[in-house]
């Protein structure tokens, strides 16, 4: 209750709240950062071979897309809760949230990888094979580089969506920006107390924008050939 006394409860005083609780908030922000990013990276690593299979063997594509699509419909709260028993973890294990979010990332990215590989023109594949590329080398040095724009677009969706899903995990007690909502809720009795809630929203949005910017820049750096097309 000292908190509530020390700062105004106006929503616009979130910055004062941030400064008053700098250490704790930065800690929450950092946890949010890696909880959002790491599952996307692991998810991408898992999706690459799965997406390749879905592209390589046509009959794999429909079931793979259906199953991964269904995974995404599991409510996040429910997934957080059932991950520990499924993977033999204790409740609130540090791996609980990354595992659940990796599942979501895979759900989004398998399709993206498969579609990205499908975006490589057929005559390019043929030419690569006829030049003497083996399947793996062709994948790494021809197909994936050409699929980068499609995959990057998927990564943007997966990352931004992860930033918001991580916050949900805060409400079950994991350290991240979601805790700010929890704090705000607890401090809102008997009168509403907004600053931590607004701060949580602002930091989540800024974080999502930062990730998005990083991916867009990375995509630009990896695909100079696409700008060359636009400049024509």
């Amino acid at each position: 209750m000292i908190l509530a006394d020390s700062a105004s409860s106006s929503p616009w005083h979130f910055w004062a709240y941030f400064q008053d609780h700098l250490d704790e908030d930065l800690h929450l922000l950092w946890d949010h950062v890696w909880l959002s990013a790491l599952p996307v990276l692991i998810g991408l690593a898992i999706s690459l071979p799965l997406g390749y299979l879905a592209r390589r063997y046509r009959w794999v594509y429909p079931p793979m897309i259906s199953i991964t699509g269904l995974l995404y419909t599991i409510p996040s709260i429910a997934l957080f809760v059932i991950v520990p028993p499924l993977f033999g973890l204790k409740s609130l294990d540090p791996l609980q949230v990354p595992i659940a979010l990796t599942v979501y990332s895979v759900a989004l990215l398998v399709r993206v990888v498969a579609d990205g590989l499908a975006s490589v023109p057929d005559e390019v594949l043929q030419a690569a094979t006829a030049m003497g590329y083996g399947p793996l080398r062709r994948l790494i040095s021809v197909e994936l580089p050409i699929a980068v724009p499609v995959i990057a677009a998927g990564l943007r969706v997966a990352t931004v969506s992860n930033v918001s899903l991580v916050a949900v995990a805060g409400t079950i007690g994991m350290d991240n920006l979601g805790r700010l909502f929890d704090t705000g809720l607890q401090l809102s009795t008997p009168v509403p107390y907004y600053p931590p809630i607004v701060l949580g929203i602002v930091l989540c949005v800024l974080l999502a924008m930062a990730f998005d910017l990083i991916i867009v820049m990375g995509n630009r750096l990896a695909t100079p050939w696409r700008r060359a097309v636009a400049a024509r």
Partner: protein
Amino acid sequence: MIRFESVTKQYPDGTKAVDELSLVAPSGEITVLVGPSGCGKTTSLRMINRMIEPTSGRIWLDDRDASKVAPAQLRRGIGYVIQHAGLFPHRTVVDNVATVPFLLGHDKREARKNALELLERVGLPQHFANRYPAQLSGGQQQRVGVARALAADPPVMLMDEPFSAVDPVVRDQLQNEFLRLQGELGKTIVFVTHDIDEAIKLGDNVAVLRVGGHLAQLATPAELLSKPADPFVAGFVGRDRGYRALGFANAGEIPLAEEATVTVGAELKRAKDVAQDGWVLVVDGARAPLGWLCLNGLPGDALSRPVSESDLNLGGTLAHQGGTLREALDAALSSPSGRGVVVDTDGALLGSTTASAVLAIIESRAAATRGSADPVAEEAS
């Protein structure tokens, strides 16, 4: 040399794309596979570099059995050019060309240097080197495709409709440059097309395939035109066969008439003095023909002005001494004066000929052939 030995490709559903194909594509020559769609020409081509595996039969590259060589290794020794070029969009032109040398682990600087020379060789200025394929026109992309296939200097090249997707003018240009390049390089080339005119223009040998993957005829272009093996080949080779065959017959010494000329800029009055049948040939300072001038119907008071290039009729084609009968006949037929203009290798005027003079050569040769040749040749045309 590439040799097909009873090669069959049958798909699981029983359709035969290629049926017992046996043929030889000699070293250093262009062998064209031509036929309607579904004749198995592309399938045959792709069996050479094992993009498709034959169901039975063997394909020999000189004394190597293709099926005994690891696919990737085999392909790095065989140049491959396809329709739309299939360039790698994410690599610059120079890196596209150097693809196979990179794959073979050659020194990158050296490979790029060679790639630049190759670009020049296929007629692309070096400043294209650092562009991306999407910044090039279709014809330019196809040149890069040819350069890429040549980069590791493979003895064998496979070309699958490489010039089909570009407009007719560019296609003609690419074909001519391809022939010039082949004259320098002497690769063993198997070339697939559905266009019989392209086959006849480019091929040293032409294999006509019929639907179902049967070889209908393997012959030189001239033979294909004069002696089609059966009605299918005759129909596929098409109309104007007799006329097109003249394109393979050397005209030899064409009897020439002297042609009076005026130089551009001379007075029209002088042109009127030397004109025959109302027409006079106008040449430039190096005696290269520019066009025909018609003197009939010119008002009398115009005769004092000089001959200008805008007065000329440009309808006539030029024949070269030592060229083909087709060229000579066409020069005569297309000339507005009825006199076909014949020039030397430098393009300077030698004289003129007429359609009846060229026809006399054709007639006398045909009479000589009739005396000796088998009667089938006559019946087919």
